């Protein structure tokens, strides 16, 4: 098979920079180096103009206006700003937040932090596909609920949330709705108006932009959302996030969003077809394989499978020229299996045996076929030496 190795199938972790993004960024790393907050000379003006163009491009991909976008260092910061910013600002109104058990740690940890500081957090348990329904959210609402935070797409299993329904519910109850859309932006269509989203986190490096830059959408009307800033300083970003702007990063983020807006539909269809080829190829050749996540309501690029009786880290080591990730306890520093898989009811043993394949724009059919062959052999070899497989198959 004629493919170049190593093969990268870990695009949910990060993506390579699109060369067009790099080209757009280059001038702002060199001659156009101005500080966007320097209002007194042309160096500053040029940087500011570039940031404002980028801000428009970034907003557009979620149907928001440039003015709604607060630039951050990434999605972790955006999530922290949204959750802690709302908690602090609306504490008078109430101290209850609803989220789910399978959010990214950048949402779970700020929530746990708040729980230690007088807030009550409800961690909703999703169904076995990873879906938290609007009905579940409705049932958890109290008079003191100030925020609902549900991710648009899960990073490990790719399951898509019914954001529009949750948004409609939040609107009808007058509760703010935040969605961590780090994985969804650039892969599926998002519209903060139509979906009733008040706060939305995003990150550039998940959509072929640079690392170290992200944004938080903050609704300005119906209702106007106010946030307590988490970074005090020069009052940048409408006072919500101080700090000199990362101009080249922001320009790159903007370009990445512009490209995604234009090419996403076609890319998603092509990538989903490759992902399905991978899924079918593996499933038809290996037994005792289960799909983690929703069979259809799922990111087009994500495939999470459990290969019973083999451990995920060993599996990855067997196919070292293919970059994937696992929910196995063996790879985590805490030696605990993935909280997402646990959250959807996957037992420790199958979480141990899970692999996540996340495809991207550069993925080819040849790569997919190569990976199928690799997986099939690796699973076979490891099962031959697995005491659990021996027990399970002994009649």
């Amino acid at each position, binding site marked *: 098979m004629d493919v170049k190795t190593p093969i990268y199938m870990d695009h949910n972790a990060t993506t390579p920079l699109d060369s067009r993004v790099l080209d757009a960024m280059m001038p702002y790393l060199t001659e156009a180096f101005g500080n966007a907050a320097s209002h007194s000379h042309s160096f500053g003006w040029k940087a500011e103009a570039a940031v404002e163009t980028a801000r428009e491009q970034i907003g557009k991909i979620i149907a928001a206006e440039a003015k709604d976008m607060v630039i951050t260092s990434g999605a972790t910061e955006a999530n922290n700003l949204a959750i802690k910013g709302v908690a602090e600002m609306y504490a008078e109104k109430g101290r209850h937040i609803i989220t789910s058990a399978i959010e990214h740690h950048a949402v779970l940890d700020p929530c746990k932090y708040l729980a230690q500081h007088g807030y009550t957090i409800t961690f909703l348990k999703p169904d076995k596909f990873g879906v938290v329904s609007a009905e579940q959210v409705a049932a958890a609402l109290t008079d003191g609920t100030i925020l609902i935070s549900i991710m648009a797409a899960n990073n490990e299993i790719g399951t898509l949330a019914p954001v529009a329904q949750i948004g409609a519910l939040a609107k009808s109850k007058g509760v703010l709705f935040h969605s961590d859309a780090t994985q969804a932006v650039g892969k599926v269509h998002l519209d903060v108006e139509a979906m009733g989203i008040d706060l939305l986190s995003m990150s550039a490096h998940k959509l072929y932009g640079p690392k170290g830059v992200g944004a938080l959408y903050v609704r300005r009307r119906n209702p106007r959302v106010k946030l307590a800033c988490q970074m005090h300083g020069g009052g940048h970003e409408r006072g919500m996030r101080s700090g000199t702007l990362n101009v080249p990063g922001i320009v790159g983020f903007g370009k990445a969003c512009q490209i995604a807006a234009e090419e996403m539909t076609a890319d998603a269809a092509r990538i989903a077809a490759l992902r399905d080829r991978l899924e079918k190829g593996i499933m038809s050749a290996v037994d005792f394989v289960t799909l983690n996540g929703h069979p259809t309501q799922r990111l087009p690029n994500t495939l999470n499978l459990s290969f019973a009786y083999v*451990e995920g880290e060993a599996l990855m080591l067997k196919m070292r020229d293919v970059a994937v990730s696992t929910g196995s306890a063996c790879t985590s520093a805490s030696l605990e299996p993935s909280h997402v898989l646990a959250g959807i009811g996957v037992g420790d043993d199958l979480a141990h045996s899970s692999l996540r394949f996340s495809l991207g724009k550069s993925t080819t059919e040849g790569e997919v076929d190569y990976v199928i062959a690799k997986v099939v052999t690796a699973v076979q070899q490891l099962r031959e030496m697995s*005491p659990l497989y021996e027990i399970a198959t002994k009649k």
Partner: protein
Amino acid sequence: MFFSEKMLDHFEHPRNVGSMDEADLSVGTATITATQCGDVTKLQLRISDDGRIVDTRFKTFGCGAAIASGSLATEWLKGKTVEEALAITNAHIAQELELPPAKVHCSVMTEEAVRDAVNDWKKKNGKL
């Protein structure tokens, strides 16, 4: 994570993979579940009447370091007396395979397996 050549060699080409008849009186069997991560290793030793290990087999459900540890142990154990076998510690294994700190615990399973397998053989043969 960095893995040594030796560790990768044992992982890629594990020695003495397989099973022996558990009912055989000369065979001591151990199945160990790692407390930390839930991985499982099965180790079997065929021991002669005078207490010398003549053959070994293992199977592991676990990470690469756990597999390599099991493989190395089966090599080391062959030809050793039961006493010599019991002197093997996980530190020896971890050192030989140059396991990174985060993976040292994986070799603990192997040390326990040697002890349990020897005990199983002793029990079966009325030597305990």
